[in-house]
């Protein structure tokens, strides 16, 4: 009995939770007047997608977002691997102090420092470049922390064995630690990609042209009320821009959830 109430409650909440999404899907495939009048049996159409696709350089936005998440991810992998390894396996004076500095960055949100970071990116000549959008996120304290944890759990025997084989320190890092930390890399990659795919405020500030603008910023400009685009077309555009990530999520749901868990628990 109580099980049935539970099922009912859980499913009801689930339906409420996905209804905005489902409604947007439905509206995207119907004409505006049908969508706002809830003519449930009205004909399906792809017109909204055609109009939306023609209304903005979406393809370019996709490329930009793709380049952005790739740049950020590569930068993060390199920087956090090196720093995480140093924190996990090397002893040197000043290590603890620097580690506290890194931890502090967890709370100095890049979002809050937009004014000075904007000035910095301009000074470096990176304004309106994809590198400029990605750079503040590369030395992620969170990633350093994650990698440090992963490397710490690698048994020292493997390290010693590789050294006896004549491997240098970087060789050991590359041949022993990196392969063993693969699950952590995967988890971190999923979290990083979905974060930066969805990031908005910072790209809004540092991009100024369709050649660099990511999808989120493009979508916000496209959907701005002053552009007077109608609601079904916005819906279609929204659909298009979230489709790749949503599809990836539905396909790799288990890994995705695991990734967030691994990343969150630290």
């Amino acid at each position: 009995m109580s099980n049935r109430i539970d099922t009912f409650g859980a499913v009801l909440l689930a339906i409420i939770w996905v209804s905005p999404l489902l409604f947007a899907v439905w509206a995207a495939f119907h004409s505006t007047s049908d969508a706002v009048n809830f003519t449930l049996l009205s004909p399906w159409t792809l017109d909204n997608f055609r109009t939306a696709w023609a209304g903005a350089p979406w393809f370019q936005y996709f490329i930009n977002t793709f380049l952005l998440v790739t740049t950020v991810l590569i930068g993060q992998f390199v920087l956090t691997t090196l720093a995480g390894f140093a924190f996990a396996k090397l002893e040197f004076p000043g290590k603890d102090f620097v580690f506290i500095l890194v931890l502090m960055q967890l709370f100095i949100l890049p979002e809050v420092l937009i004014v000075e970071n904007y000035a910095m990116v301009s000074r470096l000549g990176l304004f309106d470049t994809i590198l400029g959008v990605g750079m503040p996120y590369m030395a992620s304290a969170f990633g350093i922390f994650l990698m440090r944890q992963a490397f710490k759990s690698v048994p020292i025997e493997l390290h010693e064995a590789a050294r006896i084989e004549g491997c240098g320190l970087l060789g050991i890092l590359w041949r022993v630690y990196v392969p063993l930390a693969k699950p952590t890399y995967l988890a971190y990659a999923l979290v990083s990609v979905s974060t930066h795919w969805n990031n908005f405020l910072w790209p809004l500030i540092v991009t100024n042209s369709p050649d660099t603008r990511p999808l989120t910023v493009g979508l916000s400009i496209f959907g701005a009320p002053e552009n007077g685009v109608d609601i079904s077309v916005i819906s279609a555009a929204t659909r298009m821009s979230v489709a790749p990530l949503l599809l990836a999520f539905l396909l790799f749901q288990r890994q995705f959830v695991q990734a967030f868990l691994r990343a969150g628990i630290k």
Partner: protein
Amino acid sequence: MNSHVNLERRRQAIYGWLLLTPAMILLSIFAFYPSIATLWSSLFSRNTRRRPSEYVGGENYSDLFADPTFWLVVKNNLLYAGVTIPVSIAIALAMALWANSKISARGFVRTAYFTPTVLPMIAAANLWLFFYTPGLGVLDQIGGLFGLPTVNWLGQPETALWAIIIVTIWKEAGFFMIFYLAALQTIPEDLKEAADIEGASRWTYTRRIVLPLLMPTTLFIMVNALINSVKLIDHLFILTKGGPSDASKLILYYIWEMAFAFFDSPHAAAMTIMVLVVLGVVAAIQFFYIDKRTHYQ
């Protein structure tokens, strides 16, 4: 022998610092230096053509304290945090308990709860625009069925912030659910069996055993939710732009507006410093209080 150990130690120190250098350079450029520069520029007046920037001490801060908009924005943000944090945590807990129980539609339920998390806030805001648009939106259509008048949810000061709050809860509850789910799976089965043998009701079991065991997770989520209540503002750009008459404006949006719409970076800097101080306090609480508690678990 001794010289060998020394050599090894020196080698490690050199390698250690070399490996850290790239990350430290970027952290300095994009976190430490900007924090200090923000503090510095919050002490100077605005650089205009007529009057060059000069040292004004705490004047930017006292300007803000005298600015009614600032206080309105602070109040909005407190309400935003005060509602979104407990409500999304409570919903997340319910979601996790359900998604972890043995019900038939579990797969669907989990996916449904978590999906909003992978959407960009901008896209989420576009979806919700559908619900809020006066006359045409879903909410008004439903209300219309019951003969209720149309409501301009986003256009009137009494409801705008609440509309924003609902979108935030919708977006983050599923994310927090994940952490609860993970914690629930670490609770051993025999506790449930023991409770059953003792004849404890399900409610007693949940309240006396599950909830206390979830306490560290709750604290962790709370810190995350608190940080989100500062930084989750993307939907404002789509839904209300902080209006009407600042009724839904939040601090980070105000900082952005101050700096990039009014070009008044000293005041934006002063506000940024205040936010950083608040975040610093949260960080300190986490380090000294929460980490200790999680340890005892």
